[in-house]
């Protein structure tokens, strides 16, 4: 069952909407009764203040980028026209900068009939989309429902049946600043308690929430009691998260140190909100990583009088730019410090390089430097440093400018550069200095960077005090985040497993020890169905015929489709849990197929849908929440915060699946019935374990309960949420994502494994974009769940949701075998998707499985990553198997004798012979 990515995927189709020209918003305006001047004055009061120096950069560079390059050229022509320029090249520079802006929310009266109007806007560039829904008055929960048709602005798209996505339109503030906003007319008659929303930047795929939760604008007071603004104001306010008041407090503490512990929600409101009598206006700071394109141009000419080389460096980078430079005498590109004289503002940097501050141009849109280089030197090496400790390099290496006039160098200066990149890849040869800088710039461990940027922000500004406050705020937010993380972990009494120590003794014992979380450790799973398998009506029988084949391929476990009677043919909308006649076959066929698999030595996993259950009957309100069949429940078995099903149970302990009543697992009778059901399935059908559907929907502690009762030999949960993306690129560090999965496993007390969604996501990026370096985390371990808790990670590259005919998140086409080469050689428990087994990949998959089995790779095997570079990833697993994926070259080395065991397009696997 798949939920979260549905939300995300469906937004993709909206992209064309975002290209609507500005005119579109004019057409849109009449509906919102044209912009009322007062509403503009409102936003004028809150003139879009961009915090921090970084934004200044953003603006200027955006505006000046093009201009700069033209002036650059003319400048150069002026300076160099009469001379003998033998080298000139412009290098693109890419840098990411955090741009800060705000989301603003305004509630005021519309123009004509005095209806209330909600405006949500944002002043950062991007393809902004408002993902929103409403809470109705009669529900107390915080769940989402779709607004009535007449409230939906044009261009809105319904998302399933609980939300709306509306693109923000570009407009200009009265100040002339670009902003994006959307206006929603509120219908007075509809009993809407609140509008909930999150903002999404389509460009980057990022979601902006309010302190980790939905934004929520309570409306009931406005609509029901039009005059009661004060009450409404009170009920608005900032939704305090667990640590909500912290950052205010800290800012306040700065102002008046003595008031350290005073709580200050009020002060924030006073500070941040200027409320007219008519409504409110609220701003939330947001930050976004924006990529900037700059360039650096280097030209070299011979000075006819002195026979020296004159090297002119020019860039349109804003702010202070430092150039670290040196010269080299030969092709090894070893940095040396040239003899004096050096340009002004040059200092020696650790006796290995010179650091020169580039001179600002008179027009203020960039800077330059002129270097005089002695004869007889081979090249000029440099890197650029911005004042935030950002190092800019040429494709990861030092810039290299050839100084000799030799025609070969001149002709292929470009190739020379990429060659130098190749050469310098050999880190031993690279200068220690350069290495250090590289690792420094790569070192993204929040702390230092934060402090550094704080510092440079502060030092580079005259108005130091104000600056430091801004910067401090961001640090405080970071602290707050870290504290919340620490708190949540400490609070759960179970110690977390950062890295599972791989103990030799455990390895030896592993085969004997079977636990539900890990099985024997040597499992290889086969997902025994796809999204279409129900169609034949006799899937069990078809599967039965393949049992011995699957066994001979080396599989040890098969995941069977959900067996219960279901509203949807695929089985994920179960109704009567004890009725095991499904579209896959009847209960006898199910027993038969399980028996057959057992005969060939394959264990069977039942797909248990515990999160939700479809009802048999309606209640007195006509809502489907009364269950019949063998387990007769009423609405007490349904969670209370699902607005569609009027449950009388407790609030959900997890996310809600909106299409069916979510079961309230906190009820003892529910748990008792589910325990019995699972035990019955074990005994009656002979299932050996479980694949647990949509476990995000309820607390992992309940899973522990079920697993302890049903004692499966293996259990794996589907805990699926989206990875983190910044600026459309998946973040290298997905620790947050895998930590959520680990947290769930922890909540089950390690009784269940979980699908390693993180690994799949990272493989997507690595393979699709040829960024194989992503396959090593900062600690040199696999970046997915498998890197942290391999024995509980069930790796996969595709399943019935992501692939098959649904294709919610399909693995990069044609690269599936690289994915399998990865998961079938790595620790964790690999899963192979049915569609892939019975495809042209079959023999390759079979070869990989046999390598795995032959070399006794198990879920806790060690991985030593030997290469993680742009175009190749290589690792040695358990000392007996080496593998590489990616187009780049790799051959295993070392004392062992490696022989090729399997290979295919862009992958190779070796074993020791």
């Amino acid at each position, binding site marked *: 069952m798949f939920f979260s990515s549905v939300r995300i995927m469906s937004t993709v189709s909206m992209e064309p909407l975002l290209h609507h020209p500005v005119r579109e918003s004019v057409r849109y305006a009449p509906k919102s009764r044209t912009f009322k001047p007062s509403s503009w004055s409102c936003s004028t009061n809150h003139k879009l203040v961009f915090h921090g120096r970084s934004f200044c950069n953003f603006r200027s560079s955006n505006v000046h980028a093009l201009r700069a390059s033209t002036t650059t050229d003319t400048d150069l022509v002026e300076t160099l026209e009469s001379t003998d320029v033998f080298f000139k090249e412009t290098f693109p520079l890419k840098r990411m900068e955090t741009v800060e802006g705000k989301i603003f929310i305004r509630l005021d009266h519309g123009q004509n009939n005095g209806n209330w109007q909600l405006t949500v806007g944002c002043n950062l560039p991007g393809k902004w989309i408002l993902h929103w829904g409403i809470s109705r008055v009669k529900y107390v929960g915080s769940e989402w429902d779709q607004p009535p048709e007449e409230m939906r602005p044009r261009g809105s798209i319904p998302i399933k049946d609980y939300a709306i996505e509306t693109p923000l339109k570009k407009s200009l503030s009265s100040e002339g600043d670009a902003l994006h906003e959307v206006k929603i007319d509120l219908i007075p008659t509809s009993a809407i308690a609140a509008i909930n929303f999150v903002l999404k930047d389509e460009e980057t795929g990022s979601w902006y929430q309010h302190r980790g939760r939905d934004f929520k604008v309570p409306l009931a007071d406005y609509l029901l009691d039009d005059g009661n603004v004060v009450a409404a104001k009170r009920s608005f306010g900032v939704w305090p998260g667990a640590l909500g008041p912290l950052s205010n407090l800290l800012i306040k503490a700065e102002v008046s140190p003595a008031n*350290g512990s005073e709580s200050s929600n009020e002060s924030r409101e006073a500070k941040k909100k200027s409320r007219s009598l008519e409504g409110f206006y609220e701003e939330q700071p947001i930050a976004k990583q924006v990529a900037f394109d700059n360039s650096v141009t280097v030209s070299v000419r011979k000075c006819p009088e002195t026979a020296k080389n004159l090297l002119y460096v020019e860039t349109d980078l804003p702010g202070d730019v430092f150039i670290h430079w040196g010269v080299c005498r030969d092709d090894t590109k070893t940095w040396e410090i040239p003899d004096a004289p050096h340009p002004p503002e040059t200092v020696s940097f650790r006796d290995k390089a010179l650091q020169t501050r580039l001179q600002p141009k008179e027009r203020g849109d960039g800077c330059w430097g002129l270097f005089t280089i002695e004869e007889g030197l081979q090249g000029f090496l440099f890197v650029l440093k911005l004042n935030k400790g950002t190092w800019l390099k040429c494709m990861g290496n030092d810039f290299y400018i050839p100084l000799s006039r030799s025609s070969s160098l001149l002709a292929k200066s470009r190739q020379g550069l990429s060659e130098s990149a190749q050469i310098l890849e050999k880190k031993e040869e690279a200068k220690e200095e350069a290495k250090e800088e590289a690792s420094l710039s790569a070192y993204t461990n929040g702390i*230092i960077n934060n402090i550094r940027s704080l510092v440079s922000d502060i030092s580079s500004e005259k108005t130091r005090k104000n600056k430091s406050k801004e910067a401090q705020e961001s640090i405080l937010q970071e602290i707050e985040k870290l504290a919340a993380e620490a708190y949540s972990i400490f609070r759960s009494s179970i110690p977390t497993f950062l890295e599972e120590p791989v103990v030799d003794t455990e390895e030896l014992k592993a085969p004997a020890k079977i636990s539900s979380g890990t099985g024997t450790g040597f499992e290889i799973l086969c997902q025994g169905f796809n999204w279409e398998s129900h169609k034949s009506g006799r899937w069990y029988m078809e599967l039965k015929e393949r049992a011995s084949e699957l066994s001979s391929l080396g599989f040890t476990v098969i995941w069977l489709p959900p067996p219960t009677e279901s509203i949807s043919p695929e089985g994920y909308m179960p109704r009567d849990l004890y009725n095991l006649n499904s579209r896959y076959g009847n209960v006898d066929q199910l027993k038969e197929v399980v028996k057959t698999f057992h005969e060939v030595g394959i264990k069977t996993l039942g797909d248990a849908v515990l999160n939700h259950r479809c009802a048999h009957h309606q209640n007195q309100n006509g809502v489907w929440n009364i269950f019949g069949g063998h387990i007769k429940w009423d609405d007490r078995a349904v969670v209370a915060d699902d607005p569609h099903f009027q449950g009388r149970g407790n609030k959900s302990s997890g996310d809600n699946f909106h299409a069916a009543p979510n079961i309230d697992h906190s009820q003892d009778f529910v748990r008792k019935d589910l325990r019995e059901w699972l035990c019955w399935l074990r005994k009656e059908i002979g299932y050996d374990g479980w694949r647990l559907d949509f476990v995000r929907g309820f607390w992992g502690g309940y899973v522990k309960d079920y697993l302890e009762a049903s004692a499966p030999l293996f259990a794996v949960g589907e805990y699926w949420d989206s990875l983190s993306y910044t600026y459309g690129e998946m973040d290298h560090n997905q620790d947050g994502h895998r930590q959520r999965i680990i947290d769930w496993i922890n909540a089950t007390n390690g009784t269940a494994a979980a699908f390693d969604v993180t690994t799949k996501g990272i493989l997507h990026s690595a393979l699709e974009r040829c960024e194989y370096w992503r396959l090593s985390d900062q600690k040199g371990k696999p970046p997915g769940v498998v890197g942290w808790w391999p024995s509980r990670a069930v790796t996969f590259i595709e399943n019935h949701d992501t692939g098959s005919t649904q294709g919610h998140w399909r693995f990069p086409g044609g690269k599936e075998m690289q994915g399998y080469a990865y998961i079938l050689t790595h620790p964790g428990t690999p899963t192979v998707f049915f569609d892939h087994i019975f495809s042209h990949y079959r023999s390759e998959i079979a070869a990989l499985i046999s390598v795995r089995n032959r070399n006794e790779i198990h879920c806790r095997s060690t991985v030593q990553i030997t290469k993680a570079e742009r175009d190749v990833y290589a690792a040695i697993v358990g000392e007996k198997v080496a593998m590489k994926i990616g187009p780049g070259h790799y051959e295993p080395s070392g004392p062992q004798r490696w022989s090729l065991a399997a290979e295919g397009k862009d992958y190779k696997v070796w074993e020791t012979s």
Partner: protein
Amino acid sequence: MEVSVICSSQAKIRKTELAYRELGCFDPKGVSKAFSAKSRVCFSPSTMWRKAGIRSTLKAVQSEAVRSEKVSGSSRMSKSRDGVRLFVGLPLDAVSDCNTVNHARAIAAGLKALKLLGVEGVELPVWWGIVEKEAMRKYEWSGYLALAKMVQDAGLKLHVSLCFHASKQPKIPLPEWVSRIGESDPNIFFTDRAGQHYKECLSLAVDDLPVLDGRTPIQVYHEFCESFKSSFSPFMGSTLTGISMGLGPDGELRYPSHHKLTKSNQIPGVGEFQCYDKNMLGILKQHAEATGNSLWGLGGPHDVPTYDQSPNSNNFFRDNGGSWDSPYGDFFLSWYSNQLISHGNRLLSLAASTFSESAATVCGKIPLMHSWYKTRSHPSELTAGYYNTTTRDGYEVVAEMFARNSCKMILPGMDLSDEHQSHESLSSPEFLLADIKKACRKHGVEVCGQNSSASMAPGGFEQIKKNLLGENIVDLFSYQRMGAYFFSPEHFPSFTGFVRSLNQPELHSDDLPEQEEEAAGSLNVSSEASVHMQAV
């Protein structure tokens, strides 16, 4: 303490100022003091750079910086300018008994948060019962080393507390082999009048007796310290800046006189003397015979109340005419407290000599037995081993002992204020603290403050601030302790406010010397970071 000086460019500026200051207020004592506190320079600038290369550059500059620092230190005796280095205790069970790091992710996040807050370092309890768990001289440091590495990576300092005691909550026992010995010979433990053994640490009477498989506890402690020193040598002096020696129950130099009271809302009683194990009684007997009062050496005082009773429920502690004020009382109490001080001296001199060449400061902790302070006899202090009454200063000799060993004194209870004590307990943490600090000042003993480890009392932060800012004797504060409560929304915001208010600068940031243009970029960055983490 002054900051903003670790930077070559500034050092140049300071040189001119320096001359001026030398003229103005040169104070040899201040200079030496500032020297001894050289690590106070700022919030650990050098550790921000983990790359050895860069650090070496920093060092090159540092010599100069320190010079200017010492002068500024002496020139500004204004107490509030003295930054207090703040440490935060790591969870007691940060390393599990199978030597893995507990809550590693939480601690990692916590360390980052602390670093960002500008906290100087963390305090790490290192348990005898974990390191030397299985057999004598079989040390397992891996968990602690891993944690030290985490601390180092986070750019924080480390202060290690060597714990030769056991903990009840969380349960951290003494080493298994010690407990086994204790089972056959319970006389290695402190014993009260009723014959009950306190099994959380060894009795001070066995310090020099070969009770541990032929070795004396002092020898065992010594070997433990040596092993610690060699295992932690990579951290010594750089990351590891302080070592506190466990001196008794809960690491404190005292008798376990109050271990019976557990009910929180109860007024603490006077406690009981713990001199009834075979060896203590033996020493007492000898002592009594040597002083010609052999009858006094047969046991402890007969007219004392029990653990949770008030002073007046029996005769010994009565304000007027209590036996404490008699020659017998003086005989017993002097002996009882001298035993404790000699014990403390044995351990601290052991630690001081073991760690003399390492750059880490050695500390010992004493308790703050503040209940019944307002009576004449101070019964709680007496039973804990501090012969401090209205008529006798019992801390002078303790401070002198610390000074003799050049050890720093850890003083808990800095968060306690008189007004929040229950009236009936006649308690006065503030006065007692003042007494102890006075003794320390007199003997030049530096004090490291701690809060009492319970959850923060009302007004606790204000009290701590008062204690820290009011006295220049306290230059380091070790806040107890990281855990769920520490990071909880109820607590963490006020802690953050506390940290920031501690580091509030006197100077407006505009008044700080103008930064020269970035000369050696990264260097400047680090120094400025230190400025702002402290001075903003």
